[in-house]
């Protein structure tokens, strides 16, 4: 579909129309935290944000979700599956790093053993991406991983702020349906506008990751991991704010006769993550856990799923890590290292 425009004043009207038909989810601010959550009207949304604290992966793979309820009735055990969604949804304002992360998560959850909860949420959600403000945050490095903060790839609609209006690129049928809901609010671009209304190019530091995987794989035994793990405190912030991390735990809450089986986010940085009941732990110290995390992102994920790296450069982990472990530094360190044989 051709590029259209919508005035800033009309954006709210359009979103309110959407909210009448779908569950509308977008960035809101509460207690100083930007988060994606359901809203009744566009007035609750904030547009003053770089990105949310918790990535919108939480809307597809929630921090806690009930898988099913169980109930004992006499001798019988009844299981009741949880329905992940009541209504089709529209997510407004997702950034492209997070859109990119969804295609990575799709590989995990929608392989031949399909996760029906994730799958249903993905299928019943339309994504309205919002091109990133320029200049980007100083921490951002999504272009390192091939993500274009101004591209509609992966979403259904991309909105780009070019001053008084948003440019509108609806790139899927789902996206066009939403645009159709806002009849009269959208206008085609004139020839002059086509040229004139362009977002400024996004300039951000680009890390060299071309040989990252090969270099990393040569460093399995390197003492680097020991040193890197020194400031790590073993908390789970990096994994919880990461849009590509997908580890979870499953646990039962309730009694043996009445309860719920939940799954909730878990973190490979926790000391008991892989601890077996026998007391054995394949990743007994922070060194192994830190190494495992970076290997997962830059070696084993790409190799297992045939994708690029499992990092989208959103920089949440480097902003929030209390120990100051910075993934950008790790990438630079690895790239700067000679192979293990040279050491």
């Amino acid at each position, binding site marked *: 579909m051709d590029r259209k425009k919508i005035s800033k004043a009309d954006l709210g009207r359009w979103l309110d129309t959407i909210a009448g038909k779908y569950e509308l989810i977008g960035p809101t601010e509460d207690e100083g935290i930007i988060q994606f959550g359901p809203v009744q009207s566009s007035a609750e949304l904030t547009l003053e944000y770089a990105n949310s604290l918790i990535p919108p992966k939480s809307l597809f793979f929630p921090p806690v979700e009930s898988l099913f309820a169980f109930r004992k009735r006499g001798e019988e055990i009844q299981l009741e599956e949880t329905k992940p969604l009541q209504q089709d949804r529209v997510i407004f304002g997702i950034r492209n790093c997070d859109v990119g992360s969804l295609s990575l998560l799709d590989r995990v959850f929608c392989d031949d053993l399909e996760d029906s909860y994730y799958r249903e949420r993905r299928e019943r959600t339309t994504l309205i991406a919002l091109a990133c403000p320029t200049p980007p945050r100083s921490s951002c490095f999504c272009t390192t991983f091939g993500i274009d903060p101004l591209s509609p790839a992966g979403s259904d609609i991309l909105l780009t702020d070019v001053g008084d209006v948003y440019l509108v690129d609806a790139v899927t049928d789902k996206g066009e349906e939403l645009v159709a809901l806002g009849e009269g609010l959208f206008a085609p671009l004139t020839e002059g506008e086509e040229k004139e209304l362009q977002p400024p190019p996004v300039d951000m530091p680009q890390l060299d990751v071309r040989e990252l995987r090969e270099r990393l794989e040569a460093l399995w035994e390197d003492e680097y991991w020991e040193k890197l793990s020194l400031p790590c405190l073993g908390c789970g912030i990096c994994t919880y704010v990461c849009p590509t991390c997908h580890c979870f735990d499953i646990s039962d809450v309730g009694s043996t006769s009445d309860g*719920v089986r939940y799954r909730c986010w878990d973190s490979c940085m926790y000391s008991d993550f892989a601890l077996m009941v026998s007391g054995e732990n394949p990743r007994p110290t922070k060194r192994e856990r830190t190494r495992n995390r970076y290997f997962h992102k830059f070696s084993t994920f790409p190799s297992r799923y045939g994708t690029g790296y499992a990092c989208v450069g959103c920089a949440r982990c480097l902003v929030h890590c209390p120990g100051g472990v910075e993934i950008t530094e790790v990438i630079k360190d690895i790239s700067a290292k000679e192979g293990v044989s040279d050491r």
Partner: protein
Amino acid sequence: MASESSDEGGNGYEPKILVFACNWCSYAGADLAGVSRLQMPANCRIIRVMCSGRVRPEFVVTALSKGLDGVLVLGCHPGECHYSEGNYFTRRRGLLLKNLLQFVGIEPERFQVRWVSASEGAKFADTVEQVTEQIRALGPNRPQGGMHSTEPGDR
């Protein structure tokens, strides 16, 4: 750990109260109350501990958070501890915990500490009666109900 919550409020409401009783004084006091056939409400489940000092704060916090309506810790009178000083520690800990629970909005009646000796069968019965009535008057601790009434929302 008790996990079910009390019945919803209304006429049928019966609070569930957890009592930790020291083996040497209060539990014996409870025994005496029983043998003396004193009338007591049946809302209390008693757990015998070797000393009131054995009652760690997490026992209380977890019981209340998981939906019990009240927790009562019973120990020997200060100065009369079988282990000479266990209940002095209980006293300090109890004070702090009581204040903290109130600070986060839990009614003070829901966590109580009392000293009941082996000879005080009547005091045991009175205490149980009094605490039960106080808590009954407050109503359920977690009116929202059972373990999984708090459905997690998307974040």
